[in-house]
């Protein structure tokens, strides 16, 4: 055990490797909560990665994790959250990158491609849905989703968000929600804010020129802060932050993502009940 742990470099090592594989091990744990078998597997992977740099930079280990997790995902496909699916892709991408001649460059490229595609698909799906484009989706969400309760009452002016959540429980009988005059402007701001930020992330990550890298980091950071400050979905946020760290071009940039990772975990814990 001593020699195993001796293989480990400093926890304040901000180089892409071992930082990104280590952060990825946290994502493995954050997406482990579906079954006890899955939890045990994820804890073993995390222990191995934290215990040994050699294991953390082993591409076959990550490909194995990706194959096992994606196979699990396949069996449970229709009910699985998107961030768990995305994590499976990332393990495979990380593994392939670590097997390449230039792992750091390949890792950054894989992260940028996955991020760009995820956000491009998200923007296209939003643009294709009229109830999102006209703001109705966010009117509904602000009124019934408990995660938006604070925004709905303090900014939107809704007096009784709990009544709306109770009303949803009366479905399939038709129900009428309690609204407020501030909800529609807030919903439109969220709608167009989402379009602006998400399309910025997509474009800056999919454009091949290096000059867009910094803008990409800023756009992703803006998305992470704006989204997870309101709704701290730790599993999704952690995955995005790890890929942000993988595509960062400096140690300082990766350190910022690592701090963001920690802040998200604490914020999610404080929210309790909406984490993971």
């Amino acid at each position, binding site marked *: 055990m001593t020699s195993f742990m001796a293989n480990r470099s400093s926890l304040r090592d901000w180089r892409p490797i071992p930082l990104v594989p280590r952060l990825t091990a946290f994502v493995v744990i954050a997406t482990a909560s579906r079954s006890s078998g899955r939890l045990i597997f994820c804890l073993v992977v995390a222990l191995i990665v934290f215990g040994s740099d050699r294991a953390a930079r082993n591409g076959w280990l990550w*490909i194995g994790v*990706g194959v096992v997790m*994606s196979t699990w*995902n396949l069996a449970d*496909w*229709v*009910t*699985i*959250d*998107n961030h768990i*699916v*995305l994590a499976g*892709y*990332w393990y*495979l*991408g990380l*593994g*392939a*990158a670590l*097997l*390449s001649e230039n792992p750091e460059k*390949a890792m950054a*490229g*894989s992260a940028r*491609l*996955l991020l760009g*595609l*995820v956000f491009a*698909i*998200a923007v296209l*799906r*939003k643009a294709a*849905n009229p*109830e*999102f484009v*006209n*703001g*109705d*989706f966010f*009117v*509904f*969400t602000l*009124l*019934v989703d408990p995660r938006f309760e604070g925004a709905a009452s303090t900014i939107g002016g809704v007096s009784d968000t709990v009544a709306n959540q109770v*009303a*949803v429980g009366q*479905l*399939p*009988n*038709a*129900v*009428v*929600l*309690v*609204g407020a005059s501030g909800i*529609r402007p807030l919903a439109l701001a969220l709608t167009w804010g*989402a379009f602006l930020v998400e399309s910025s992330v997509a474009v800056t990550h999919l454009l091949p020129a290096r000059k867009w890298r910094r803008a990409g980091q800023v756009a992703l950071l803006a998305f992470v802060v704006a989204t997870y400050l309101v709704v701290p979905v730790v599993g999704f946020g952690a995955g995005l932050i790890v890929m942000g760290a993988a595509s960062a071009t400096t140690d300082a940039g990766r350190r910022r993502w690592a701090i963001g990772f920690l802040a998200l975990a604490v914020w999610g814990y404080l929210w309790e009940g909406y984490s993971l």
Partner: protein
Amino acid sequence: MQPKVLRALAILPAALLVAVAGWQVVRIQTHDQSPWLGGGFSMFVYVDGAQYRPLVAFSQEEPAVRIPIPSDLLGKAERLKAAPTHQRAARFAASLAEGAGRPVRVEVWRPAFDAETLTITAELIAFGSSP
């Protein structure tokens, strides 16, 4: 490792991402699959999330009584709401009937929202009964 194999491995995650997201779009149109789940990255886009789809179970005998979903069937209930079919609803009804000791009918509904009147209505999308 062969460069060709490495290149294929590097492209595989992105290819899977696009393929699964595309397949999910097809499933939403053809099988009423919930847009929020399953790798299509459409969460926070549609009112029709599985979490808002009511699943109602009630006895078929008169007077009809609501049957609560036992905790050991919650996983199956989530699956039924996320990808409802009449066959799956009938199987779920049969599972419920075993515990309830009487014939059960199960219905899955999809919410629709009118933002002008702030009214949520529901449309029946799958149903099934135990034998």
